[in-house]
């Protein structure tokens, strides 16, 4: 079909069919993909894995971020961490729904974004959220980096998990979706392990590092624990821009710069 014809057909399907119509959904996939910020990389700084460790872990990461932003444009998202775990446990015990947990958990990622923001203020890095996202290009052009709170804004509309009430889409998903919607170059999860292991290396001494794996293999292996939120894997399968992510160890100096340069220094997870 010619471009003009396919465009006419998409427009007529849009006006006449249900938005769940298979033909319409397929036709919408034929629309062009315009990457909004294709040169930008998203870095997620872990809450429990890094920020909760205090200055021993955070100061070196801040220095590295301040250095890399001279040569790379970066969006820095924050995780939540131990206070989110406390408030999730408390709220779940009270019988509160996933939506309320999402809201209170978001506040913890916000606090972490604020703290990181104060530490990076002298480097000119602002903290932005919500409607201020419209000014991202200005901040990135001006200083090369922006900090945002990693929790997605799902609030009372968060999808409920199959079991229990813990919000399934948390800061890994939030940061990943920011990278995807802006069509970013890299999505790097900065945590406190060298990458993804066969089990949780903090509790299982037999766990071994998996340097590279596809989303399909990872879903098929159904590991008991995971360093990245499971729903991110499903999002990656459907993604149009960010088809691979890297998980690196922020406690090891220099890895953020190397990962931004495209080096394989942690675990690379890719959608086939």
């Amino acid at each position, binding site marked *: 079909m010619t471009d003009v014809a396919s465009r006419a057909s*998409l*427009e007529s399907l*849009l*006006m006449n069919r249900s*938005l*769940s*119509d298979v033909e319409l*959904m397929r036709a*919408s*996939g034929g*629309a062009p*993909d*315009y990457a*909004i910020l294709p040169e930008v990389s998203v870095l997620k700084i872990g809450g*429990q894995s890094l920020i909760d*460790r205090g*200055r*021993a872990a955070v*100061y070196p990461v*801040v*220095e590295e971020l301040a250095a890399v932003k001279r040569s790379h444009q970066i969006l820095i998202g924050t995780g939540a961490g*131990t*206070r989110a*775990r*406390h408030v*999730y*446990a*408390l709220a*779940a015990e*009270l*019988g*509160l729904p*996933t*939506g*309320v947990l999402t*809201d209170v958990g978001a506040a913890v990622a916000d606090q972490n974004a604020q703290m990181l923001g104060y*530490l990076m203020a*002298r480097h000119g890095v602002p903290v932005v959220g919500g409607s201020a*996202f419209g000014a991202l290009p200005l901040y990135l052009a001006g200083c090369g980096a922006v900090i945002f709170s990693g929790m*997605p*804004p*799902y*609030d*009372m*509309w*968060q999808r*409920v998990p199959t*079991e*229990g009430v813990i919000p399934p889409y948390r800061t890994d998903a939030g940061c990943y*979706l*920011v990278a*995807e*919607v802006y069509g970013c170059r890299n999505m790097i999860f900065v945590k406190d392990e060298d990458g993804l292991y066969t089990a949780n290396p*903090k509790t299982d001494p037999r766990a071994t590092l998996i340097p590279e794996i596809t989303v399909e293999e990872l879903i098929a292996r159904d590991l*008991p*624990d995971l360093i990245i939120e499971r729903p991110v894997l499903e*999002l990656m399968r*459907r993604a149009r*821009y960010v088809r691979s992510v890297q998980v690196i160890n922020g*406690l090891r100096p220099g890895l953020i710069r190397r990962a931004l340069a495209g080096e394989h220094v942690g675990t690379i997870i890719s959608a086939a």
Partner: protein
Amino acid sequence: MTSTLSHSEPFFVAKDVPSALMRQTLLDRELLRPVDRPVIPLLPWLNVVVIGGRSIMDKGSEAIVPVVAELHEALLEHRLLILTGPGIRGRHVLGVGLDLGLPTGVLAALASAEAEQNGHLIAALLAEQGVSYLPHAATAHQLAVHLMASRAAVSNGYPPYGLYEFPPEVGKIPPHRTDTGAFLLADAYGAARIIYVKDVDGVFTSDPATTSTSPPELISRASAAELLARNLDTLPIDPLVLELMAHAKHQKQIQIINGLTPGAITKALQGEHVGTIIYAD
């Protein structure tokens, strides 16, 4: 280097708050079980009424005025959260956005603005009765006080996913739209019921508007799984709602009614079986 931060005491000890989930990845299914408790309904007296964009709003005053009149009567007796869909302008902005190559998250934010505008119209028509339009944040955090001060409030049926909308399985149309947003919100609040006001009597075996051969039959009651399995091309509700019903904490049934039939909204709010009732298995 005066600007360099000092980190002379390299102790990699995390500062923890003791809790049942402390130090967990929150991804280990076994470890999450201890905090699994029944969820309490926050607003068990709430009635969620979803006004379709294409089905009601786009039909103009002919359809909207009687629906609003019925809602006006109903709010004397029931506490209502009225949610609206975007309709034809949502389709238009999706079309423009798709043509420009914009991603799903941007399309979601654009379409959501149209659902909001339809909400403002309904709220304006009910303002005299103390009904206001609430933006997402107020709907999530101040709904209780609004519904104590007034019998009803109007909000945006679209969920506030915006830029954080999921890439869909197929194509680029945002997957979480009005029907789904309303369902997730009703479930989070533990609402008494959710009623979808459309322009058909419910779910039909084939499209009542186009079928000429075998007369379409109304399915008055069906399970969500059964309807999904039948893969009907005439479903008047987003199939994602039927998928989500399986794991919903409270919303184990939904009702689809015809807003063009006088009295249908009133009957549904009184618990009468009009239209189609879909239940979780």
